[in-house]
């Protein structure tokens, strides 16, 4: 689903899509190809059993459209605002084609592409922006065969999330349509290996400002685990233990 764009812009976008950058995996000790996904407790408990898969988010309102939203383990609490249960999984990024939208120049490329879409006016000037925005973001990823988008958090709590420094990931799963066309898959992701419930947060959050801010309900100000939390979670994952994080 993509209208005409100039060859120069298309070439610049293709040039901006590169290998998965390992630096976002660095836990301070070494790169760990692992992610964490926080979710409400009622979903999280199923990941205490082996054989589960992470769910692809497909409803409207997700930043980069239909994808599996995770955070590199190097940012162990960044997305804790979405639920009390942190599910950790391994992944093999291999030849993932990655669009790094944490770079302002790449954000500009996406915006330039968006502005040239035939339905851009509908996106900006009607009440249908959420749905059309999702369609267009999906199409941008599909057209350029993007396996992973890296982006800055767009929802936050100052004790957990840095909108300036943290990196979140939207990861594509692919499937073939009956027509043979490659499209984004729904259902459960095949990208992540052995997801396990590994972190439990004490804090509970609720939306403020329509979800832009996630306010802590307890904010007891308890001590954070000393040392390198990402490494502690990595060890806990491998040992089958659970890390508990005070509010």
């Amino acid at each position: 689903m993509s209208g005409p764009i100039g060859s120069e812009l298309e070439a610049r976008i293709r040039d901006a899509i590169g290998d998965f950058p390992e630096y976002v995996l660095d836990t301070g000790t070494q790169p760990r190809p692992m992610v964490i996904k926080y979710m409400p407790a009622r979903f999280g408990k199923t990941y205490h059993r082996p054989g589960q898969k992470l769910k692809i988010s497909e409803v409207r309102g997700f930043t980069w459209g239909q994808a599996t939203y995770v955070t590199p383990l190097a940012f162990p609490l960044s997305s804790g605002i979405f639920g009390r249960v942190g599910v950790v999984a391994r992944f093999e990024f291999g030849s993932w084609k990655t669009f790094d939208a944490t770079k302002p120049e790449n954000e500009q490329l996406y915006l330039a592409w968006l502005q040239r879409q035939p339905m851009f006016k509908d996106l900006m000037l009607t009440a249908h922006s959420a749905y059309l925005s999702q369609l267009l973001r999906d199409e941008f990823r599909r057209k350029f065969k993007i396996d992973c988008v890296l982006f800055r958090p767009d929802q936050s709590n100052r004790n957990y999330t840095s909108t300036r420094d943290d990196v979140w990931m939207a990861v594509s799963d692919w499937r073939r349509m009956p027509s043979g066309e490659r499209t984004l898959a729904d259902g459960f992701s095949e990208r992540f290996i052995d997801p396990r419930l590994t972190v439990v947060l004490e804090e509970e959050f609720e939306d403020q400002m329509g979800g832009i801010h996630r306010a802590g309900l307890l904010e007891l100000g308890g001590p954070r685990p000393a040392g390198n939390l990402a490494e502690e979670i990595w060890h806990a994952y491998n040992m089958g233990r659970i890390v508990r994080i005070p509010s």
Partner: protein
Amino acid sequence: MNGLLAIAAAFLDLMTNPQHGIEVNEEYSLRFHQALIDDPEFANSFATLALSAEDVESLPICAWPWYLQWRAGNGSPPSRDFLDALFDYTDDPAIRLSVVRSAVWEEYPASTPADHPPADAEHRSDDDSGDRRFTGADPQPSDAVAERERRRNVQNPWLRARTTRMVSAAGAARGQADASEIATYLLQLGDPASLESLRALIQDEPWAGRESVVATVQRHIAEAGLDRETATRWRAQLGLANPGGTA
């Protein structure tokens, strides 16, 4: 009314209506996909529901784009009558875009159901070379309509029926607006089947909406900021004249 849809309506509202919030939408999306895994027969029956025009109000309107997209990947598109009724039910571009996408995909070669006749089989003679035989009598009005239909380029049955109605409403502002709107959707979809349909609309013999379609597509190409070579290629692909020359 389809009984399964009647029962599913409340569930799908919780899954697709943004008013319930992402967390609720996601919870029901998770339940839905779990049900698909647990009961493959359910998936099959839900993807092939027979829908008629009367079923348009069976689901909350926000559920239809999701359902049409999901169904396109898991079954075959619903009937043309249903798609037509849904298109007419609302002016919402998100819904209308999803209808056009379903309608166009229906005829995409690899997915064309075996029981569907070729797009205009009922109109096409064995000798379709364009050499019209003299019958010795002026055609009656019904013959004239049939003759006009026979000469049309538009193969997609949904698009053909809809534009035929535009022809019958020649000069009506509504027909012009619909033609322009459909052209925008086809250009936005941008897949081979959509562009082929758009080209057919442009190349069709003069019909009430053709001028509007041509103007709309020329405007989008002009506003897309394309380099000359890309713009020329797009116009040639769609059968449009280039400024200062011919296609």
